[in-house]
């Protein structure tokens, strides 16, 4: 007990790979017991059974509001949990929000015990967020490429022109209308779908 007791951390994360990445990073610090909760049904109750010191959840997780119930201690045996924002640690909380992780910390826990865990979580969520953004960007770029290719095909067929001419036409229209090439291509594909 006392200062030597390991901290119990609950990570709420449905994606298995992301959960493993976070757990591994936290375990490397050697200071914590980590539990992962994947399913969202009965979330607050499941968290309470672990009696955690810290709960970590992705800021974009819609189930996060279920955790806000933990901030109101409804019974004498329950430990109120506060979102980690107050006092000197305020900068840390801002960094956490920016990294995309929200941390709920049991009331009264010393800042120096929390900081290493939150620091690791912030670093890990930063990496995960980058990966996710890159993935989304790649997917979007691929989708746009497909639409532009279809629009080029439509123009080539309708006007009997070459691929580079078709692309030049899309670009010129986009420039004139102050729109993105992908948006012009999408409008063309939609319109041609309606007309065919």
């Amino acid at each position, binding site marked *: 007990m006392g200062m030597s007791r390991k901290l119990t951390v609950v990570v709420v994360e449905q994606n298995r790979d992301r959960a493993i990445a976070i757990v591994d990073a936290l375990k490397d610090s050697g200071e914590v017991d980590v539990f992962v909760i994947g399913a*969202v049904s009965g979330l607050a109750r499941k968290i309470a059974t672990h009696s955690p010191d810290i709960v970590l959840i992705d800021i974009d997780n*819609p189930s996060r509001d279920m955790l*806000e119930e933990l901030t109101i201690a409804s019974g004498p045996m329950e430990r109120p949990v506060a*979102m980690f*924002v107050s006092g000197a640690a305020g900068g840390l909380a801002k960094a956490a929000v920016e990294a995309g992780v929200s941390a709920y910390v049991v009331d009264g826990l010393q800042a120096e015990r929390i900081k290493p865990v939150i620091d690791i979580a912030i670093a890990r969520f930063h990496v995960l967020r980058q990966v996710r953004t890159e993935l989304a960007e790649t997917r979007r770029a691929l989708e746009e490429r497909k639409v532009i290719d279809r629009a080029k095909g439509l123009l080539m067929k309708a006007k009997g022109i070459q691929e580079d001419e078709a692309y030049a036409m899309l670009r010129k229209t986009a420039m004139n209308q102050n729109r993105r090439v992908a948006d012009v291509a999408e409008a063309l594909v939609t319109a041609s779908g309606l007309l065919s």
Partner: protein
Amino acid sequence: MRTVSLPVAYMPLVDAAPLIAAREMGFDHAEGVSLDLRPAPSWSSLRDMLAFGHVDAAHLLSPVPIAMALGLGGIATPFSAVSVLSLNGNVIGVGQDLEKRLRASGYAFDFQDANAAGAALARVANGPLVFGVPFPFSMHVELLRYWVAGTELASTQVEIRTVPPPLMAQALAAGEIDAFCVGEPWGSVSVDDQVGALLLPGRAIWTCAPEKVLAVRTEWAETEPHLLGGLMRAIWRAARWLSRPESRTTASEMLSRASYLNVSSELIDRALSGEFTISSRGEQRHVDGFVEFFDGAASFPWRSQAKWIAHQLARRNGLDPTQAEYQAAKVFRSDLYRRELQSSGVELPGASEKLEGAIPDATAVASASGSLILPPNVFFDRRIFEPSE
């Protein structure tokens, strides 16, 4: 005219309409601001986006800034509610199991009488009733608690759990909750998914419940008065536009877009028209003023509304009600509303407080031009809330 881009967070709900219409109809540009609307994944994230300065304004549950001012719920950044975005707009619904038992008991689902609905539900409840709500600090919780306490449900064990609205239908189907109180379109979604039936509109409990507010950081309101004024006027114009019957179809289409609510416009139109389908049997019910954005000074942030909310929160959380009302009154900024809107021909009430629940019929009240009519303001139990001094 040069416009200043203003990041504003919202939850994809029907009552985000004033923000969405301000942007889509160009009322924002007319006031020199350009709304950069950002959907939030949850109410807690939305609150944090505002508290940490990722956005400058937000569509927020009216009890949230008051709970924060009372030291409840963790975050302490001072917020100001500069206007009320909407009155009412929630529905209470039950799962199939309760629906069956209610029908067997002869209940007719009138979607109107809160006393009768409470009595009927109390009769068929066997064991504790679990209600899902979107957030622990919300008008949903306040209306539910007020209704339960004032009906025969008072002797039934009621538990309230937070369930994100998009997961409400699923939680009902899985039996994790028995019933819910949620903002549209999520009640109608549960009907269309054939997992729930609608019992009451929120306004059957209180006809003038301040549902969502336009919230800003108090410090931002002080440093950016011109942006604040532009934002408030743009949203006031959007609310006026929404109040015209001929705007309704356009508004439903606008909100239904994938970038906003991403549900069918027909579903959104139910809330805007008050024409509800309340069960999977297709029963139709009409509600006047299901959600109100404009009429009767709907957007005026009455200090007495803040005090009512604070009074309920204080009593449940062991705080001194009088002190809580005093703190809460400073959160609803009728002063800023007057300052920013008085020059725009907005009908401003003479007082900033009123007895809540004391207007049985529409009543003309003192205002700058003398032509302001306040709509009926009554609680289902006809009690009157007198704010403390």
